[in-house]
């Protein structure tokens, strides 16, 4: 929670008498010393061994039961867990803030792998809506198709779907990379703020609608551009990065990236420097 303090230095709005307080949030504080990165662990995380492997059949488990059991196995040092019979259940594998090699032998429902930070995940099936929402770091690979809101609001990591995805892929994303081997639906990259989306196939209408920042690369046809989404020049460094990324993602390694389209924000919707309506009144 940010602290509210009164300070001497006044902003433009304060100098007009609109308010007197200033927010000094956590983003302005120094929390960590980068030199001590190896000591950064979430509370309750485990030291696991990738060579220690086990299977977990979740056929007759609810999602909370399955997720608790994954946590229990990690606490025993298992670094590779194979989930059997996920059966399209919702909310499997959520909230894993640990290094872990996780394999699903089947499909997931909604919100699979949501709010994770660190695991390497392979899903040998399909995923429903909002897969890997809020992913912070790690890698999630889906071997088949994905539903809508794929990678919503991710902040980091690599999210890869070898098939096609639904609408609003990468909505509100704030970092990381999303790679789609097939086609993507409408409103891909809607309100994205940072990060990159790569689509090797076609994409639907309103691509990059109201995007603040970030980059979208498209290999196929574009249904239509969204508001303030514009073409940009595909540079040689872009192409190098695309080749590397597709190779690491085990997807489209031979794809001719030189013909891809690059879409960025026109930044004509940016209003950060404008005054609020009430402030405008005060300025008149």
């Amino acid at each position, binding site marked *: 929670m940010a602290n509210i303090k009164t300070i001497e230095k006044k902003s433009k709005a304060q100098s007009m008498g609109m308010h007197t307080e200033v927010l000094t949030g956590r983003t302005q504080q120094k929390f960590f010393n980068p030199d001590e990165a190896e000591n950064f662990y979430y509370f309750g995380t485990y030291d696991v061994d990738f060579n220690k492997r086990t299977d977990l059949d979740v056929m007759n488990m609810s999602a909370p039961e399955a997720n608790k059991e994954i946590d229990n196995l990690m606490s025993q040092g298992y670094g590779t867990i194979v989930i059997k019979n996920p*059966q*399209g*259940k*919702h909310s499997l594998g959520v909230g894993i803030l640990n290094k872990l090699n996780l394999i699903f032998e*089947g*499909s997931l*429902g*909604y919100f699979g792998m949501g709010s994770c930070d660190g695991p390497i995940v392979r899903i040998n*099936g*399909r995923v*429903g*809506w909002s897969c890997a929402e809020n992913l912070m770091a790690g890698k999630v690979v889906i071997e*088949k*198709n*994905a*539903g*809508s809101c794929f990678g919503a609001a991710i902040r980091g990591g690599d999210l890869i779907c070898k*098939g*096609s*995805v*639904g*609408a*609003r892929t990468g909505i509100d994303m704030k970092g990381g990379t999303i790679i789609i081997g097939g*086609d993507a*639906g*409408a*409103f891909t990259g809607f309100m994205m703020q940072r990060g990159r989306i790569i689509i090797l196939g076609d994409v*639907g*209408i309103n691509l990059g609608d109201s995007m603040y920042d970030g980059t979208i690369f498209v290999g196929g046809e574009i249904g239509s551009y969204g508001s303030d989404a514009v073409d940009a020049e595909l540079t040689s460094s872009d192409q190098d990065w695309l080749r590397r990324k597709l190779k690491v993602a085990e997807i489209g390694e031979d794809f001719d990236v030189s013909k891809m389209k690059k879409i960025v924000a026109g930044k004509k919707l940016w209003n950060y420097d404008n005054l609020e309506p009430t402030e405008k009144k005060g300025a008149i």
Partner: protein
Amino acid sequence: MCGIAGLIHRGKSSNVGSELQGMLQALKHRGEDSTGYALYGDTDGKNFIMRFKVGENVGEGSSSVMEDVSVYDERKKIVDQTLSEMGAKIIKEERTLPYSLRYEVDYETKDLLDFSQRIESIPGVEILSMGKSLEVIKDLGNAKMVCDRYSLDKLVGTHAIGHARMATESGVDIKSAHPFWGYPFSDVSVVHNGQLTNYWNNRRVLENKGMRFMSECDSELIAVYIAQKMREGASLEEGMKDSLTGLDGVFTYFVATKDSLGMAKDTMAAKPLVLYESDDLVAMGSEEIAIRSVLPHEIDTYDPFDGEVKVWQI
């Protein structure tokens, strides 16, 4: 939030009543105010099957007004008399519940508009479905409760669509429950997940063209809209494609006829749908767990894209 599910067997019949019950029960967390089935059973095709109600379920959670059961008997008598006056002969009669009836009717005339208008002019009476194969069964409660109440698990047929409803924009009652019959077309039914924002504009236009609305549920508009397009000569698929621009809002809906099943998704793709398609079976639902109830093994499914319309034949 509501859940919809549907399946069509191609080239064979199956126990669609039980299969749809499993699919809808898997979606009960999306709403269990009411559940409805549109089942296309194996029949000899000679007589019409008329499912109708002479009152509402006034059980717990219902928004309907309590009526004396004797009123239902009076209404039934008037229905019987009206059928007789129209030259329709009741071949078989089942009264599953005091307010819910199933008639097999020998009726030669193909135009069901006049037929339906006369039956529904009886206060408190609504035809839930009319067709040679279609039977719409809907009531309050989740899929299993409705299935058990009406003994639907033994019904054998080729295809079916259904709906698990969370009431948001109209009452908790049978008249607002899905599926909706595509009045006045024989064997046409619709289920919908979403909200329509130009309901009243479209309703006024369609009422002026002689179509009827039995509820204030926005989803009913889809059934009437498609039926009107078909009245004007459009095919089912043409009518559905036209609805993508004619209907405003967010929607995924299914339409079924005697020998086909179709789906349409709005241009914003705001409502979910997962689809499984093979040579002998198409199954679809708001969530994959619905499909898993009939196909527990590993399968390939996908989400149809925005503005997509698909129709399958039996």
